[in-house]
């Protein structure tokens, strides 16, 4: 069936160190686009990154991700984590016809 699997639970990283949040998917249907959403405490989710092109790197706010259809992945990475990056991150897949599949979310905490 269709699913999006993220690094589960809590991820803690020290400020200045790299961070990687995994996202993989299983699908029966064609994937139109992939997203990473970020939700800061007491705020609404907002788009961080979007990609619909295989093997093309997309970047925003220091984060980057590359959609790899061969390995069914869309991992989120940042070379140097900041305290302000602490938030809940969702990977989401869009298959068309207004169908979205969200992962369970990964809570990132950046410590000094």
């Amino acid at each position, binding site marked *: 069936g269709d699913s999006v699997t993220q690094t589960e639970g809590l991820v803690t990283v020290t400020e200045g160190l790299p961070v990687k949040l995994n996202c993989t998917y299983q699908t029966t249907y064609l994937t*139109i686009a992939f*997203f990473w959403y970020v939700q800061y405490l007491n705020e609404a989710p907002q788009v961080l990154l979007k990609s619909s092109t295989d093997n093309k790197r997309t970047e925003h706010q220091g984060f980057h991700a590359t959609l790899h259809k061969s390995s069914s992945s869309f991992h989120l990475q940042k070379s140097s984590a900041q305290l302000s990056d602490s938030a809940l991150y*969702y990977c989401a897949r869009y298959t068309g016809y207004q169908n979205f599949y969200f992962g369970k979310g990964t809570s990132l905490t950046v410590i000094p």
Partner: protein
Amino acid sequence: ETAVFQTPNYHVTQVGNEVSFNCKQTLGHDTMYWYKQDSKKLLKIMFSYNNKQLIVNETVPRRFSPQSSDKAHLNLRIKSVEPEDSAVYLCASSFRLGVNYAEQFFGPGTRLTVL
């Protein structure tokens, strides 16, 4: 200001009551959605609405129903709330086609507590 607006921010009610939440978007989008975010922060899409076409997640109980007057408004009605309906309900909107298709903008949410 262009955004997605939701009212109320919070709502506390008792089991069996009917509730209704409002959502309005001023982004000019043609598609709107309702999501449920539970206590574990799981996000589940409930409905999407585009040009009078409603798509329903088959796992959503029938006591939930969306109501739309135009493409800028999509309200959510719960006919007889249950304790498991306690959650944050998020409204979102997007373009269905075009360069920025499917990029959803979320409202601040309505937190429902069912006693």
